[in-house]
């Protein structure tokens, strides 16, 4: 493959590599609140 074609291929693949960053998310969970609405105990 000619160097020019290699450069073109690299340029084509670049956005795919750049877009492969992991997706991040914070999940906040509560549970078993048991009717508490104010600090106690």
């Amino acid at each position, binding site marked *: 493959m000619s160097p020019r074609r290699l450069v073109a291929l690299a340029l084509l693949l670049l956005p795919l590599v750049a877009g*492969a*960053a*992991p*997706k*991040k*998310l*914070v*999940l*906040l*969970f*509560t*549970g*078993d*609140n*048991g*009717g*508490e*609405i*104010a*600090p*106690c105990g």
Partner: protein
Amino acid sequence: MPVLALDAGNALFKGLADGQDPTAKLRAGLLLEQMGAQGYTAMAVGQRDLVLGVDFLKKKTKGAKLKLLSANLVDAKGQRLFPASVVTTVGGLKVGIVGVSPASPDPKVPAGGTDGSALLPPGVQGQPVQPAVAAEVKRLREKEQVDLVVVLAAVPYVEAVRLAQGADGVDFVVQSHDGRGVGMAQRQGVSTLVPPGERGRQVAKLEVSVEGTGPFADLSEANRARESQRLVEANIARVNERLKAEKNEDTRRSLQETLASFEARRDALGRTAAASGPTSGRTYLLTYVQLGADVASDAAVQQQVERVEPPGSAGH
């Protein structure tokens, strides 16, 4: 980082007899309003959320963004009482959230058994947990093409463990029912069981990173392994120092055996750290945010709370 807030259920009432308390209805109403105002997306319906019946819950959440979920609660005609799931896209990830409630006790099993069921109000039937969740997860994976599935499991712990061990396509199972409090995320077969904390004393914070497919790796495992590796390396250095100075052949042999066992341990910890390290495609890290006295109250919410539970009242 984008945030998704979810409740695993059993949020609204102190106990099954709480319906007798005149403030119980006000408290439950305030909790539902505030969960909506604070941006919660969904909550599973637990046994202790049903104290004032299904109609109370439906009325209080009519038109609200907060969705109450249960894949297995049905009425006397077998009609589902709540949606089984909700799908939301956050941070570029399509997340399927399933709610599940306890199964009604099997009349053939003696009361007080440990089959993972729970008594429900008259007219409300809890169908078996695992088939209900499996059917909904299959739908979410195949039809909705979600990236992540979270099951809010308002079921006894024993049932949540069974669910996590066998629920294909589920990434996280968040359990409420027994008030087990905080803990470590536990890999159970195909998915990870997450304790959400209890009684509003903390918020479980699960930081998720998704790249590609495959099982999730626990970053805290890698962190713990690296920490242990450092301790073992310090021990190896001490044994090597002693070996340099030791002349007695028997003692030297014993030290060399100790050294070999420490080195094997260090290498095993290195493999654990590498296998669950940040290079993996899908990782999570669970921590808890404690909601102690150092966290300031919102003045407007505080006022509403004090209308229901004045300072110095029995509720405080």
